[in-house]
């Protein structure tokens, strides 16, 4: 972890490594939005936004904002070369049709089978669904970024989700401030542990059953 780097940035930086040259990517709101800041120069990515931009570029400089050129979160963006506008039905056609290579979404809970819960906590104020269900169910690859445990210290990586689902068996990779875990047919495999945590720390904070391979990468 760099000096002063927050765990949110650390998660975003790790998630950015999943983005490969040429991918069409949709980033959710929150930590996922920050992923764009960590993509290496020279990696060409087409960013998709639900409000109808294919090929969104970086944030404009202060004073250069256009109120009618914003991302799905309502914040100003620019356009990359070759970008296009469309209506929201077409923007979701791209998602439903399977044309989005990867999405990075926030999560409240993920199960060891890759079930995702990220839209409602019953009895608490809900923001709504937005595009999360389509993205979770239809993007080719779903990366969930989240804190490993909630404010009460309870694991958010679970055998079964307790919260209502966004989509079943959709998550491919989970990135937290402690670890990177891959959903496989053989179970939830611990791939990487973030310094200063240990494999034992991660197991202790994870309700889901983790498969521990002989080699687990260590990220500093």
């Amino acid at each position, binding site marked *: 972890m760099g000096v002063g780097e927050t765990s949110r940035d650390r998660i975003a930086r790790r998630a950015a490594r999943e983005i490969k040259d040429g991918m069409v990517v949709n980033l959710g709101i929150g930590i996922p939005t920050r992923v764009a800041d960590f993509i290496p120069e020279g990696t060409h990515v087409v960013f998709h936004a639900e409000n109808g931009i294919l090929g969104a570029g970086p944030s404009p400089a202060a004073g250069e904002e256009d109120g*009618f050129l914003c991302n799905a979160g309502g914040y100003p963006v620019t356009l990359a070369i070759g970008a296009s*506008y469309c209506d929201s039905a077409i923007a979701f056609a791209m998602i439903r049709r399977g044309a989005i290579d990867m999405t990075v979404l926030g999560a409240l809970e993920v199960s060891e089978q890759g079930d995702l819960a990220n839209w409602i906590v019953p009895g608490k104020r809900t923001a709504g669904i937005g595009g999360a269900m389509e993205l979770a169910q239809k993007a080719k690859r779903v990366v969930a970024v989240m804190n490993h445990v909630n404010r009460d210290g309870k694991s958010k990586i679970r055998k079964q989700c307790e919260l209502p689902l966004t989509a079943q068996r959709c998550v491919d990779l989970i990135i937290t401030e402690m670890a990177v875990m891959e959903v496989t047919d053989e179970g939830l495999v611990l791939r990487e542990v973030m310094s200063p945590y240990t494999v034992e720390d991660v197991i202790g904070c994870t309700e889901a059953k983790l498969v521990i391979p002989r080699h687990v990468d260590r990220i500093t």
Partner: protein
Amino acid sequence: MTKQKSLEEALQWIHDGCTLMFGGFGGIGTPPTLVEGILEKGVKELTLIGNDTGFPWIGIGRLVTEGRVRKVITSHIGSNPNAGKMMEDGRMEVVFYPQGTLAEKIRAGGVGLGGILVDVGIGTTLEAGKEKVVVDGKTYLVEPALTADVAIVHARKADPYGNLIYDKSGRNFNPLVAMAGDRTIAEADELVPLGELDPESIVTPGIFVNAVVAGKGVNWQWVWEKQAATGSQGEPPAK
């Protein structure tokens, strides 16, 4: 023949208790002059259909904040805490759909279809109470089409026939909403003579539009403008 109308003429179709569909995404592409006019006219008990409830003082959020809305059919209310409070207090009913499903339900209404078949939401609580059909071995939810008494949209340019082009990401739900109103009112930042819009670039053909109103431009401060100054979520526009 011109469909250009004064604000007052256009708003005659909007009355207490009517169903109002609106374009816009986080307030971007929601017609500011029409929203202002609806507020001033004092219309209440509205059922809203649209992507989200804007921000407290941006877009359709202003109608929510002023307590003019009885029910909203939407995908997201997170950027408008007033909507969340009213939902909790039982002052406003909220029905959520996945964003893409909502867009297609509106489009279906606009293009004369009875509904759509969609597998998004299968395996979630959204299945509850919904009709399902199996087509070629795959299970889909039946989602009925949505239409409205009146639809309001925000265009960058309109001609007297109601041909519309939109403004960048301000397009979003607008072309879908424009087709789905029994009456559609388009607010345009610029009214141009017939023949001036390139037929190749018209997004909404004027046949779907009943009235064109000259817009006075965005009369709220965007959330990012406000945040740059104070970090808050915007404030009421100056009268």
